[in-house]
């Protein structure tokens, strides 16, 4: 009896295997499915959208949009993507009507990732959302969002403090240069944000209209009081004869790597430099700001983003379109860890992932300021960056930097690509 029973079991088990019922064999990989924010190009009659794109060159679906939700009613597209520590996906946005949004993700009954839609959040008048960071103030975690336009005006700019559960505004951190006393710390056009212990840093980048004003300082915020306490000027060379326009910032800290001495790193968009400002944890004071990378000397321009892996730091440079790489453990010094990854003009955001065969890859999104192209008579075109919107995501071998493939969104979808810095996954995130 037992022999019969177990013989049947073996036979049926073998049968199941033969017809391919093992879930592992039918596994759909998600390690290479990137979340992208796409910009509709007015002259090509396309709409802004949020999409999931397959980025593994080894996949038959490479370059395909697996799910897409359009934003037909929003003039300017969403801008940055962040997963919260609890796995909720947020996006900042350039449109005043949707400067911050939560994106709904799910899976259908086949397991296929689905973008359900997005909900624009009430920012209490704060506009042009940029970066998000979750940090703690007096033991309570909040979502901090930089709004480059703040609540409006020529010297606007704010850091919105949001309840992590309800998404409600808890506080707006504002300090207009025109309203604070002479020499008092101000916040203006904030974009980059980072934090360590009870100190937060935001940058002063550029007025959202890109004409009214440009910043050149970092602002330190005391996370105990949620008030600005110090400005630090980061300006040296002026290759464009503009203020330096610090953009992204990284507070290098020991929890990134035990060997790191705390310091702020800041990229200046128009100064083409990377700055270092040492931080003394004992006295809670910052040392003298110094240039540790010169774009003029190294023939690169428009340094933008910081991203990290377990052992490397990556910095994108819009011109000529490269990603430089450094040893994480050596921070805050920039010690090269390998040759440049040569992407396309406008090299900007990036993600790291693996191919189906296990190859470590990096995908770089190449659109500088995410604007249109003069050749399309695009009304959003700005001459300075007209040639810096390749509209591509380039895929490279992470170890060698070798360029393996590219997706040209303009050619394939008549859209620009504004962002790729997250995968469809369980709280996976790459930024700052």
């Amino acid at each position, binding site marked *: *009896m*037992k022999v*019969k*029973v*177990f013989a*049947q*079991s073996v036979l*049926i*088990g073998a*049968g*199941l295997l033969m*017809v*391919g*019922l*093992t*879930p*592992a064999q*039918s*596994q*759909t*990989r*998600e390690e290479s499915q990137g979340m992208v924010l796409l910009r509709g190009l007015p002259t090509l009659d396309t709409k802004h959208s949020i999409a999931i794109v397959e980025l593994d060159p080894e996949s038959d679906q490479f370059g395909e949009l697996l799910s897409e939700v359009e934003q037909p009613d929003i003039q300017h597209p969403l801008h940055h993507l962040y997963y919260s520590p*609890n*796995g*909720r996906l947020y996006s900042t946005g350039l449109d005043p009507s949707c400067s911050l949004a939560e994106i709904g*993700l*799910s*899976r*259908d*009954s*086949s*397991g296929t*990732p*689905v973008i*359900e839609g997005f909900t624009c959040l009430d920012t209490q008048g704060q506009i042009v959302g940029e970066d998000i960071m979750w940090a703690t103030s007096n033991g309570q975690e909040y979502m901090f969002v930089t709004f480059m336009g703040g609540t409006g005006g020529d010297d606007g700019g704010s850091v919105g403090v949001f309840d*992590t*559960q*309800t*998404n409600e505004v808890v506080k707006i951190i504002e300090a207009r240069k025109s309203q604070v006393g002479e020499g008092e710390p101000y916040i203006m056009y904030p974009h980059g944000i980072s934090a360590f212990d009870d100190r937060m840093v935001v940058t002063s980048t550029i007025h959202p209209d890109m004409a009214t004003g440009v910043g050149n300082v970092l602002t330190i915020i005391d996370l105990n009081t949620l008030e600005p306490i110090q400005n630090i000027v980061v300006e040296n060379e002026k290759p464009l004869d503009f203020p330096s326009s610090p953009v992204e910032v990284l507070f290098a800290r020991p*929890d990134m790597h035990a060997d790191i001495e705390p310091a702020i790193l800041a990229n200046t968009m128009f100064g083409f430099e990377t700055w270092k400002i040492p931080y003394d944890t004992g006295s809670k004071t910052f040392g003298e700001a110094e240039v540790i990378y010169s774009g003029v000397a190294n023939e690169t321009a428009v340094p933008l983003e910081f991203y990290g892996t377990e052992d490397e730091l990556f910095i994108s440079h819009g011109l000529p379109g490269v990603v430089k790489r450094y040893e994480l453990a050596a921070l805050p010094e920039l010690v090269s860890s390998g040759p440049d990854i040569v992407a396309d003009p406008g090299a900007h955001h990036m993600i790291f992932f693996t191919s189906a065969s296990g190859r470590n890859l990096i995908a770089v999104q190449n659109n500088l300021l995410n604007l249109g192209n003069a050749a399309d008579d695009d009304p959003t075109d700005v001459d300075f960056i007209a040639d810096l919107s390749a509209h591509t995501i380039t895929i490279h071998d992470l170890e060698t930097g070798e360029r393996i493939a590219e997706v040209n969104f303009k050619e394939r979808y008549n859209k620009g690509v504004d962002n790729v810095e997250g995968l*469809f*996954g*369980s*709280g996976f995130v790459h930024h700052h």
Partner: protein
Amino acid sequence: MLRVFLTAAVAGVIAATTWVIWDRVRGPTATPIAGFSAPFVFGRFAVPPDNPLTEEAFALGRHLFYDPILSGNNQVSCATCHVQALAFTDGLAKSPALPGGELEFSSMSLTNLLWGQERFFWDGRATSLEAQALMPIQHPDEMDQDLGELVTELQASRDYRRMFRKAYGEISAENVTRALSTFMRMLISSDSKYDRFLRGKARLSEQEEHGRKLFMAHPDTKVSLRGGNCIDCHSQFLTSGFRDALDGFSNNGLDSDGDLPDGLMAVTGNPAHKGFFKVPTLRNIAVTAPYMHDGRFETLEEVMDHYNDGIVVSDTLSPLILEADNAPEAGQGTVGLRMTPDEVQSIIAFLHTLTDEDFLTNTQFSNPFEGDS
């Protein structure tokens, strides 16, 4: 007038007869599960391509799950040892064996099986849900059913003939296991207080939040980080074991080398896997006592006492458990987390937030042979 009436009646009979014949000869229907939406934070999942989640397969699987026809004596169903109100466990340390005595292991919870480790049973002896489903049916100590006899019995039922026809086309042992797998895959628990917290729809109490933070932290005295070390084995959102390779199995320090059962080693033959058992989901853990593969702990307090101060060292003990110590300077007489009583109670409070009342009472998962279900 009469002619019109008769013509209409004949047409009606012909139409009804045609429909009945067509319904009996047509192929299976594959109606996608209505309103299916899985939380993306649970991670990826895959359903076998030839056993997609359909309404027809789910309905059939649900009936089979609750039907004692699956057992040799027609008295034991899957639900005998997997009770919905107990998150599909049975509340016993070890389930009773059919010939008398008890089974080797405690009944496992059937929750969120779409995700996590793809080996099933405490010792991982089944490599797919479909393979798993047939084992208890045939096991002499569990349901002791001959599959050929089961198919014959099912074929004698008009209801099952109809349901199998709709779901798969024919009655077979393979389709029994497919249907049971579909039902089990649909046992999704995603509306606990913790889930609502993750969605921003609920707040945890101060104690629950403290417990959540401890749950998610591996203790590190160098940076004064206190932790319950739970997440090293129980993933952040699913709270089950990890999916990749055999990461979802562990020796969690229950027995010494001399008493260590084979566990996963019985399947892999690898001595390094001796004493490894599947890391279970902690979803609805407050209602699934007793705990561990052999049900040795009656309460969550006993479980926490084990991890806090009662780890038994053996050759294959998880190094993540061995090195997790919040107070290494407190003496080396015992191995454990050495958390404070408040911290222990906080973790237990958090574990209670994993109870999903909707899951435990959802009529879609209940016995279809009872009431109006």
